[in-house]
C-alpha cells in the first residue's frame, strides 16, 4: 500500500517550520469572498497583511471587493481565476458546510501550485471532512480547520483565513516568541491578549478548529514550532475528544522528531465527560479515553510536574499544565525563568478585575463593591463619546419591500404593527393608536391627557393650507389628493424645526452632563447654555398658549429626566426673571419628550424618532383638520381648530368624530369609529399606500412629505370593494323604511331581502354567462381568496369585530343582512358553499351606519358619504403608516426603494 508521507509523519505534511505556514510570500484566493462573513473579515485581513489576497471567487458573479488598500478582483470560479493568470498558493473557504468539500476539490483540481487550504466553515459533516482529508492528502496540500479562524504570522503581520485578532488584529497580535495553537478560535486571540499583558508576544497563531477531523493538529504543529527560529515556547488550548495530543506527545517521547521547546497548556472540559451531544465544538465529545481528565494526565506525565499553582509556581523545562487560561501569563513567565529567557517586551498590565461600567444605585457589600476604572485606550474615549448616544439604533439596510414595523400573517390576513394585531389595536382610542405607532408601546394612563392636549392643539390649521385643500377639491381632486395638497405645504415649517431643535438640546444637556433625578446642583456650563439658548434678552411677546403649556409642564405627573430639566429651565427663568424665547415650541418639545422619553431610553425608538415625535402628531392632527367636509357648516371644526386650551384634554377620538360627522358622538359611535380606524391601520408593508410613504422616505423627504407620498399612492381602488358595498347596500335598504340601522327591532325582513337578492343574482349571473360575459359583477365584500374552500367560510377579522360588537350590544342591520345573505346565496344555489363576509364589509357597514341618519335626513349627499368613507380609510392608514415612515427613516438607506435594473423589463 502506497502512502504519500513526508517528514516524521505517516501522512503528508507540507510545512517544515511555522514560518512557512503563511508569510509575506503567501498569496491567497478566498472562495465566497462576497458572503456576509467574508465581506466583513477579508478586507481587514487584506489590509493587515499588506494586500496578500490576489483574488476572490463568488460563484456566478464577477466584480471586486473594495478594501482600503485597493480592490480585490472577484471571479466566477477558480477556473476563471487561473485563466486570468493569477497565481495563489493558499485557498480560504467561507462557503456553507455542504459546499466546502466541492470547493476543496475545485481548488485542488485547478491549481497545481496550491499548498494550503484554510476552512473557516463550521458544521461540516464528518463524511465531508473525511473526503477533504483524502483529497488533500492525495494532492499534497495542508489543510487548516475546519471550523477555525485561520492562521496569523505576527512577525510578518499576515493573517489568513478568519478573523484572528478581531477587527483590529494589530491591537492584540504583538510580535514575540510564543507559538499559539488553540482548539478555540476565540481563545487563540484571548490567549494572545492575556500573554501580551505580561510581556509575551506571538510568533504564529493557529486556530486549529475542533471538529472530529483536525487537519493541522498538534503533532504537525509542534514539529513546525520546533523548526521555527522565532518560537521559544508554545501556548496550547485543548478540549476533550480526539487523540491528537497523545499522538504528538508519544511521537516526542518516541523521538520521531526532536522537540525541546516548553509548552504551557490549558485543558478544559472535564464536565463534557458524560455528555452524549456536543455543544460548541463538534469534536469536543469524548469517546473512550480522550476526555479532559485523560488529556490532563497525558500532559502532566509529559511535564513531570503537577498542574500549575500560581501561588507556588513550579514548572519543568518541558513546561506545565494550567487549570485556567488566566494563568497563561504567570505560567509562561515561570517557564521562561526556568529556561533563562526574558519576555519579549515590558508587561503592560494584568488580568485583575477592572470594572468598566456599573449601575450607580445598588450598593454591594464591601468585598464585592468594585470601583469603576478608566477603560483601556481607545475604549475610554469611546465610552466618553458614546455616553452621549441614546435611544435605539438600527443597522442601515435596504428596506425596499421590508418593514420592521408591520407584518401580515399570511394565514389569517391579520396585520400586526409592532407585535400587536390591528384587531387588538382597534380597541384603543385613536390617540392611543397614534402614540403606539410612534412609541411601539401603549401610553401610561397618566400620559393620555398630554397626548390629547398636543393632538388637539395641533388641530389648528392656517387659512392658506385650507385654501390649498379647497382649491384641489373644487377642481375634482379625489380625497387623497386634496388632503395631500395642504400636507405638502407643511414642508419643514418653523413649528417642526423649532420643537425638534429644543428636543435635541434637552437630550444633549441630559446626556452630556449626566442629569437625572439625583441632580441637585446643575453645572454652571449647563446654566450658561440654557441662558444663551432658551432665554431671550429682548422682550418676548406673551404667548397665552405657551403659558398654558408651561403650567402643564410644571404640573405634569410624568417624571423623567426631560421633564425635570424642563421644569428646572422654567424655574431658572422665573428665578432670574428671564423670558423664555419660544415658549410655545419649547413647551411642545418638553411635553413631547415627556411622552417619548421612556420608549427612547428602553431603546424601542431612536433618538431621532423621539425628537421628531411632535412632527408626527402635527401631521396627524392637521390631517384630521383638513378632513372636514364643509368647514363653514361645521361649528365643531371652527372651534377645535382655534387652538383654544379650554377643552384641550378632551379625547382626540371625540374630536375626530365631531370634525368628520359634524355632531356629538354616542359611546357606541365612538367604539365604531375606533374599529373603522383600527381595522384600516395597515395591511402590511406591501400595500401601495405604505410603499408610497416608504418611497418618499427613501428619496429623503421631510416627514409631512412622506405622508403626502402615502396619500398620493392611494386612490379610488382602495378599500377593497368597500365603496361598492356601500352602493350595494343603498340599493337594498330604503331610507324611508330604515330609520335606525342600530336598532335591532327594525321590522325589516332581512331574510326576504337576502333571498330576493340571491335569486336576482342567480338570474343575473346566468344571463351574464349566456351573453358571454364571464367577468360579471360580483356581490361586493363576500368571499375572500385566502379564506375560501371550506363548507362554511369565515374571515377571522370579520368574526373578531362581529363578536366584539355583539359583546358590546352593538347591532348593525347591514352586517346582519350580510350574514343572512351569504347563507341565502348558498341555499338558493348561487354559491357552492357558504361564503365569508369579509373585513371590507365590516368597514362599509359601520361607516354606512354612522352616516345613515344624516343621509336619511338629507344632511349629506351621496358624494359626501363616499368621500367620508374614503377619508376614514385615509385617516386610519395615515396613523398606521406613521410606523412605516418611522421604521424606514430609522433603518433604510437613501434611494433604497429603487428597483434593480435586473428586475426591470420592457413590454411591447
Amino acid at each position, binding site marked *: 500500500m502506497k502512502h504519500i508521507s513526508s517528514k516524521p509523519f505517516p501522512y503528508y505534511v507540507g510545512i517544515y517550520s511555522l514560518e512557512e505556514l503563511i508569510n509575506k510570500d503567501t498569496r491567497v484566493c478566498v472562495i465566497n469572498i462576497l458572503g456576509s462573513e467574508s465581506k466583513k473579515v477579508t478586507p481587514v485581513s487584506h489590509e493587515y497583511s499588506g494586500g496578500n489576497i490576489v483574488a476572490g471567487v463568488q460563484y456566478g458573479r464577477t466584480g471586486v471587493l473594495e478594501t482600503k488598500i485597493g480592490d480585490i478582483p472577484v471571479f466566477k470560479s477558480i477556473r476563471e481565476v487561473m485563466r486570468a493568470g493569477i497565481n495563489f498558493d493558499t485557498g480560504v473557504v467561507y462557503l456553507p458546510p455542504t459546499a466546502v468539500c466541492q470547493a476543496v476539490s475545485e481548488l485542488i483540481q485547478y491549481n497545481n501550485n496550491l499548498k494550503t487550504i484554510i476552512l473557516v466553515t463550521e458544521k461540516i459533516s464528518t463524511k465531508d471532512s473525511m473526503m477533504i482529508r483524502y483529497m488533500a492528502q492525495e494532492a499534497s496540500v495542508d489543510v487548516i480547520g475546519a471550523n477555525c479562524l485561520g492562521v496569523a504570522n505576527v512577525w510578518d503581520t499576515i493573517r489568513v483565513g*478568519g478573523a484572528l485578532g478581531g477587527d483590529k488584529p494589530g491591537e492584540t497580535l504583538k510580535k514575540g516568541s510564543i507559538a499559539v495553537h488553540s482548539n478555540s478560535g*476565540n481563545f487563540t486571540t484571548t490567549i494572545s491578549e492575556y500573554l501580551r499583558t505580561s510581556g509575551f508576544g506571538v510568533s504564529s497563531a493557529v486556530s486549529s478548529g475542533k471538529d472530529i477531523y483536525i487537519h493541522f493538529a498538534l503533532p504537525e504543529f509542534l514539529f513546525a514550532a520546533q523548526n521555527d527560529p522565532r518560537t521559544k515556547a508554545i501556548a496550547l488550548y485543548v478540549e476533550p475528544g480526539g487523540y491528537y495530543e497523545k499522538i504528538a506527545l508519544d511521537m516526542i517521547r518516541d523521538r520521531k522528531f526532536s522537540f525541546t521547546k516548553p509548552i504551557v497548556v490549558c485543558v478544559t472540559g472535564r464536565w463534557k465527560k458524560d455528555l452524549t451531544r456536543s455543544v460548541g465544538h463538534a469534536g469536543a465529545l469524548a469517546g*473512550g479515553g480522550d476526555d479532559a481528565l485523560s488529556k490532563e494526565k497525558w500532559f502532566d506525565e509529559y511535564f513531570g510536574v503537577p498542574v500549575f499553582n500560581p501561588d507556588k509556581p513550579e514548572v519543568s523545562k518541558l513546561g506545565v499544565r494550567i487549570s485556567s487560561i488566566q494563568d497563561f501569563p504567570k505560567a509562561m513567565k515561570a517557564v521562561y525563568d526556568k529556561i533563562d529567557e526574558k519576555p519579549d517586551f515590558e508587561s503592560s498590565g494584568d488580568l485583575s478585575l477592572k470594572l*468598566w461600567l456599573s449601575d450607580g444605585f445598588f450598593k454591594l457589600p464591601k468585598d464585592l463593591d468594585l470601583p469603576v476604572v478608566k477603560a483601556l485606550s481607545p*475604549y475610554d474615549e469611546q465610552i466618553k463619546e*458614546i455616553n452621549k448616544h441614546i435611544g435605539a439604533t438600527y443597522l442601515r439596510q435596504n428596506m425596499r419591500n421590508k418593514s420592521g414595523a408591520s407584518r401580515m400573517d399570511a394565514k389569517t390576513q391579520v396585520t400586526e404593527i409592532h407585535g400587536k394585531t390591528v384587531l387588538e389595536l382597534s380597541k384603543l382610542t385613536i390617540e392611543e393608536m397614534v402614540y403606539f405607532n410612534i412609541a411601539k408601546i401603549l401610553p401610561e394612563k397618566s400620559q393620555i391627557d398630554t397626548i390629547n392636549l398636543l393632538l388637539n392643539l395641533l388641530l389648528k390649521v392656517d387659512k392658506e393650507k385650507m385654501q390649498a385643500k379647497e382649491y384641489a377639491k373644487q377642481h375634482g381632486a379625489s380625497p387623497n389628493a386634496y388632503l395631500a395638497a395642504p400636507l405638502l405645504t407643511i414642508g419643514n415649517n418653523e413649528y417642526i424645526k423649532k420643537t425638534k431643535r429644543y428636543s435635541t438640546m434637552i437630550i444633549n444637556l441630559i446626556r452630556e452632563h449626566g442629569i437625572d433625578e439625583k441632580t441637585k446642583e446643575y453645572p454652571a456650563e449647563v446654566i450658561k447654555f440654557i441662558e444663551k439658548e432658551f432665554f431671550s434678552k429682548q422682550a418676548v411677546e406673551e404667548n397665552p398658549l405657551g403659558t398654558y403649556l408651561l403650567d402643564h409642564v410644571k404640573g405634569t405627573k410624568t417624571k423623567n429626566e426631560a421633564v425635570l430639566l424642563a421644569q428646572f429651565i422654567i424655574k431658572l427663568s422665573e428665578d432670574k426673571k428671564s423670558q423664555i424665547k419660544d415658549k410655545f415650541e419649547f413647551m411642545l418639545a418638553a411635553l413631547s419628550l415627556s411622552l417619548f422619553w421612556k420608549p427612547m431610553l428602553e431603546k424601542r425608538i431612536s433618538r431621532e424618532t423621539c425628537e421628531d415625535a411632535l412632527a408626527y402628531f402635527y401631521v396627524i392632527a392637521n390631517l384630521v383638520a383638513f378632513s372636514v367636509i364643509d368647514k363653514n357648516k361645521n361649528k365643531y371644526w371652527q372651534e377645535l381648530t382655534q387652538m383654544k386650551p379650554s377643552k384641550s384634554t378632551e379625547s382626540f377620538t371625540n374630536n375626530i368624530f365631531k370634525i368628520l360627522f359634524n355632531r356629538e358622538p354616542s359611546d357606541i359611535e365612538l367604539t365604531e369609529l375606533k374599529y373603522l380606524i383600527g381595522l384600516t391601520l395597515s395591511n402590511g408593508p406591501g400595500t401601495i399606500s405604505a410603499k408610497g410613504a416608504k418611497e418618499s422616505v427613501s428619496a429623503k423627504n421631510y416627514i409631512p412629505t412622506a405622508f403626502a407620498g402615502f396619500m398620493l399612492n392611494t386612490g379610488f381602488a382602495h378599500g377593497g370593494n368597500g365603496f361598492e358595498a356601500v352602493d350595494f347596500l343603498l340599493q337594498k335598504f330604503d331610507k324611508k323604511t330604515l330609520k335606525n340601522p342600530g336598532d335591532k327591532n327594525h321590522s325589516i325582513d332581512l331574510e326576504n331581502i337576502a333571498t330576493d337578492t340571491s335569486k336576482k343574482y342567480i338570474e343575473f349571473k346566468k344571463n351574464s354567462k349566456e351573453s358571454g360575459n364571464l367577468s360579471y359583477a360580483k356581490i361586493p365584500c363576500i368571499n375572500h381568496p385566502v379564506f375560501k374552500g371550506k363548507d362554511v367560510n369565515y374571515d377571522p377579522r370579520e368574526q373578531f369585530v362581529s363578536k366584539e360588537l355583539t359583546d358590546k350590544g352593538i347591532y348593525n342591520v347591514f352586517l346582519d343582512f350580510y350574514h343572512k345573505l351569504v347563507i341565502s346565496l348558498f341555499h338558493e344555489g348561487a354559491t357552492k358553499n357558504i361564503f365569508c363576509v369579509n373585513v371590507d364589509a365590516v368597514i362599509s357597514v359601520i361607516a354606512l351606519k354612522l352616516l345613515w341618519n344624516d343621509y336619511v335626513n338629507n344632511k349629506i349627499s351621496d358624494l359626501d358619504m363616499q368621500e367620508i368613507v374614503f377619508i376614514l380609510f385615509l385617516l386610519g392608514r395615515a396613523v398606521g403608516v406613521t410606523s412605516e415612515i418611522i421604521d424606514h427613516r430609522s433603518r433604510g438607506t437613501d434611494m433604497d426603494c429603487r428597483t434593480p435594473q435586473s428586475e426591470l423589463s420592457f413590454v411591447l
Partner: protein
Amino acid sequence: MQISGLRYGSKLFDLVEFPYAKNLSGGATKEDIEELMKPTGKIVVKPYFAGGVGKKGKAGLVRIAKSVDEALKAKEDLYFATHKHGNKSIKANGVVFEEFVPTDSDMEIYFSITDSTSIRKAIFTLAIEGGVDIEDLPAEKKAIIPIDPLIGIKSFDITNALNDLGCPEQYVSPLVQHLPKLWDLYDNYGVSTLELNPIRMKQNGKSYLPVACDLKAAFDQDNPDYKRIGLPQSIFIGETTKFESEINKLRTYQGQSDVVEMNPKGSIIPFMFGGGANSAATETLGTKAIFASDFGGNPPYEKMYEISKIVFNHFYDHASVILIIGGKANNTDIYVTFKGVFDALRDHIAVNGKKPIYTVIGRGGPNLIQGMFYAKDILDTLKLPYKMFGYDTSMIQTLEYAKRIDDYWLKEGREIYTKNYM
C-alpha cells in the same frame, strides 16, 4: 442523535439487507411471542430506551426467557426500568422481544465503524469476542483497519483480519459477504458511529449467517443524509429537554444553537460566546450554570433575540444572575448580540413583569462599547443592577465574580433589592 437496539435498528439493517434478529414490540400478543420462540424455545427481552443507550447487558437489563410467562414477567420488570447512562438516569419506554439466535459455538462478533482521530480516517474494528467493551480488549484481540473512503470496506481486509484474530474458517466467508455492506450504511445515511455487538453466527443450511443481535448508531447532526432513513424524529426527542429542543429549532450551519441544559435549578443564566468560553465557563460555574452554550460565530440579531427570548421564558423567573461571558471576539459583533439579548430581556419583562436579577458581563470584540452601552441603557431603564468588565479582565475572574454575586444575591441581595426597588 443516537439509537440503540433493534426496534429502530432493524430499519437500518433493512436498507443494506444485513441480517438481524427478528423482533417484536412490547405490545406483541402471546401468540406472536410463541411464534418467535418456536425455533429455539427462547426469547430475548430488552428494555427500549430512546436515544443511544449502551451497556444494557452489563446492567442486567437483558433477559433470556424460556417461556411466554417468563417473557411477560420480564416485560413487566423491564417496562419502566431505569438505566444510569452517563450523567443521566434514563427511564425505559417499553420493551422489545427479540429472536434468540442460536449458535453452535460461544463465539460472538464485534464490529464497528467510526472515524479515528488517531489516523484521521474512517476505520472498522473487528473482534471475535462480542458482547464485551471493546476498549477492554487487548490490542491483539481486535483488528483496527483503515477504510478507503472511495472503495469502502475491502473484503480482503476482513478476511485478513478474521484470519489474524483466529476466526473459525466456516464463519469467514459469510462475514466477508455481509460486513462490507455496512459501509454503505455508514457512508450514505449520515451515520457517524455504527456498532454491532454482538453478531451471532446462525446456521443457515450448510452455511452460516451473521445475525446482528444489537445495534448502536450515532448520527452526524451536520449530515442531513440520516433523514433518508425515515426514522421518526420523536425517537430523538428524549435526548433533549424542552428548552434544548426549542433552541435547537433555530439551528443553522452558522451555529449558535448548541445548548446543553446542565442544571435547570441553577441560578446563573450564562450566555457563553465561543467554544472555548463554553468549555471554560461551564467548568468554572459548576452547578450554578443553568446551561452550557456557545452563541459565538457572529449570530444575526434576529437569532440572538429569539434565543434570548427562549432563555428568559424558561429561566428568568428563578435565576439570580444573567451572565454574558466570552473572550475578545474576533468577528462576533458585540453590539448586535447584546442588542438581541437585552431587547429580549426588556420585552420579556414588559410582558411578564420584573424579577430581581443581577447582570454581569465580561466581553471584548468589535463594537464592544456600543454593545455595553446598549445593555447599560436598558438595564438602567429597568432599574436592574449590573457590572461590566472589558477583555483586560481575566474571563475566569469575571466568572468567579459572577459566582460571588450569585451567592450574595441568593443570600440577601435579592431581598434587599426587592425591598428597595420593586
